[in-house]
């Protein structure tokens, strides 16, 4: 049996971060949660993540910054973005930078699994 995909969850909002990690766990994914993109990068080299689910607006490095840094390192790790903001054109921005999906909070797990499946297929 192949190992379960490992997902990195990055969100500065603790309750959502925890909820998301547990949801992934209930869905059969391996999940590791980080409060910031900086924390994630500290761990990134040692762990073979299959996908990143990151919030866009965070103190310090944003979700976009994270994706840009990955691109700069020539890393094709798929990124799914989430946001609680009502800002209208985030989908386009996310697509432009190469994110697999943008999920607007609140969203249900089904929407997320669709995204994950697409992300992991690549």
């Amino acid at each position, binding site marked *: 049996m192949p190992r379960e995909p490992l997902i990195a969850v990055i969100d500065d*909002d603790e*309750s*959502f971060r*925890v*909820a*998301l990690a*547990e*949801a992934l766990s*209930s*869905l059969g994914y391996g999940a590791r949660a980080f409060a910031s993109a900086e924390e994630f990068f500290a761990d990134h080299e040692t762990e073979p993540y299959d996908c990143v689910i990151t919030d866009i*607006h965070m103190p310090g490095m944003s979700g976009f910054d994270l994706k840009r840094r990955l691109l700069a390192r020539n890393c094709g790790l798929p990124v799914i973005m*989430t946001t*609680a*903001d*009502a*800002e209208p054109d985030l989908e386009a921005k996310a697509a432009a930078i190469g994110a697999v999906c943008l999920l607007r*909070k*609140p*969203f*249900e*797990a089904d929407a997320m699994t669709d995204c994950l499946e697409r992300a992991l297929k690549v």
Partner: protein
Amino acid sequence: MERSFFRASRGEPRRIVMRIVFCLAVALTSVSALAEPLPRTILFLDEDTPIYPWFRQMSEAFYATIKTETANPPFVFIESLGIDAYAAPDYFNILRSHFREKYRDKAIGVIVTDASRELAFTLRLRNELWPGTPVVLAGIQERRAARLSLPSNVTGFTFRHQLQDIVATADALIPGLKRVVLAGSRIERGGWRQDFLDDVPDVRGRFEVIDLTGLSMAELRQRLGELPGDSAVTYVGFSTDVTGERYLPNEASQLIAEAANRPTFVDSETFIGKGSVGGLVVSPGGIGRVAARFALRILDGENASDIPITNSEEILRPVFDWRQLQHWGISEDRLPVGSDVRFRSPTAWEQYRWQIMLISAALLLQSLLIAGLFYEHRRRRQAEVQASRRMAELAHMNRSAAIGQMSASIVHEINQPLAAIVMNAGTGLRWLAKDTPNVEKAAHALKNIVGNGNRASQVVQTLRAMFKKEISNRTLVDINDAIRAVLTLLRIELEEHEVVTKATLKEGLPHVMADRVQLQQVIFNLVTNAIEAMSSIGADSRTLRLRSEEIESGECIVAIEDSGPGIEPETLKRIFEPFFTSKSKGMGMGLSICRSIIEAHGGRLWVAGNTPRGAVFEFALPVATHSVRDQV
């Protein structure tokens, strides 16, 4: 000058007596007169009566010359003989005895006479009373002089006087002259202009002559008014017309010139200024001057017989009336060289040069000042409009930005716990739905839901508290001032949307305790909504009504009424709900925030009316109590 006022006929017997007296007188006085130097006295004998301007002009010039041209001016006696006027049969005798008595003790050095027609009469008088006394004939027409044979000791000077001169002047001044009109009484032999009769054929050779002499004045005047356009009038003197009516030559010349529909030309300076254009005229002043010089030469020792009678150029002069030149449109360029143009009315520029220059300068200065002020005013107005527009834009932006920012943060703050709740709920369900339900993990998820739910409610509470926090900024505010401030801010916007504003603000309204900025924000919002609501209706019916008053409950009421289409009933129900909007743009927070602000001030905001023509929003704020006022 017209010498035919009365035609006298003097009797022959008188002459025989006179000759005897004359011979005796010569025998007694001539010898002594030759031996002694002449007394420095001049006797001026005028044939006519002094009524004529001719004599006045001549004698004035005569006197002036005598006075200025010699260091020792002789004494001048003047006598008007009035030969025409006093046509009594023995007039000569009367005059002679009168002068004999009058000049018994007066020695006369030289006699000057303007004798022209009655020369014989005058010379007889001289021969009988002052025999041998030298005589100066002052100005005789050339042709008349040629016919005279003068006694010794008589000299004088002549001038040219012919009809051709008048006609030539008219011809020079009037382009295309074809007809010459002779206007006056009949020219008669023996009269002053008798030689004109000889000139007529010559004139006829070059022009068509319309002879209007010998008519009554009335008829003459009538005919003169109907002259053809290529004609000119030559005035040949008028004394007595066919009806026996007498005229002074001067007044006749005026009557004729005024009646004529063509310019009138004359031959005497005395007619200048009486309606004629002028002409090459005989100048009595010139005659007076030349005569004075002749008299002085004789008094200074020259023998009268040695001075030949010559033509004097000084007598015939081109003189014109400027007013008539203007009237007939005759250019001064056509006038002979050296013309004397009289009655020139000075141009306004010549007359009031300094005044005009001063006034012009003042006007110029004033105009510049006005222009400057206009320019400044325009610039200021433009600046005002721009500033006002920017203020309104800024206020708009502030409002939109503040509301937008607040909305965004509210959305974010609510969405986070909601997202967690949704996520946890799904997780819980999944743990329970497994083949071996993991109750522990499901319970953990449910606990998280409770926590997140509480967190969401916390957000809402914080939001409410936000408006209450502002209490420290509250001061006593005059609601009317706040309304006026907002109207000032929105003036340009109101003008641009062609909204007529009618404010009925109650004077002396009690102050309220409020955050002035928030209160103005509410009014600003309501007025802006009103303007937007009216944008869909015709510009001529856009009316914004603002009203403020105090009601008995101790509150101040402000009503903002528009004339727009009103609010849909569906919309009305939810209008104060947050995020509810009927507009394409906007977050739907405006009215909600307005209500929050008003309620935070202990007041109320509601829709007071919603007729088909317009919506009325009203809010009430409690009047500040005394205790509050004291605290402030």
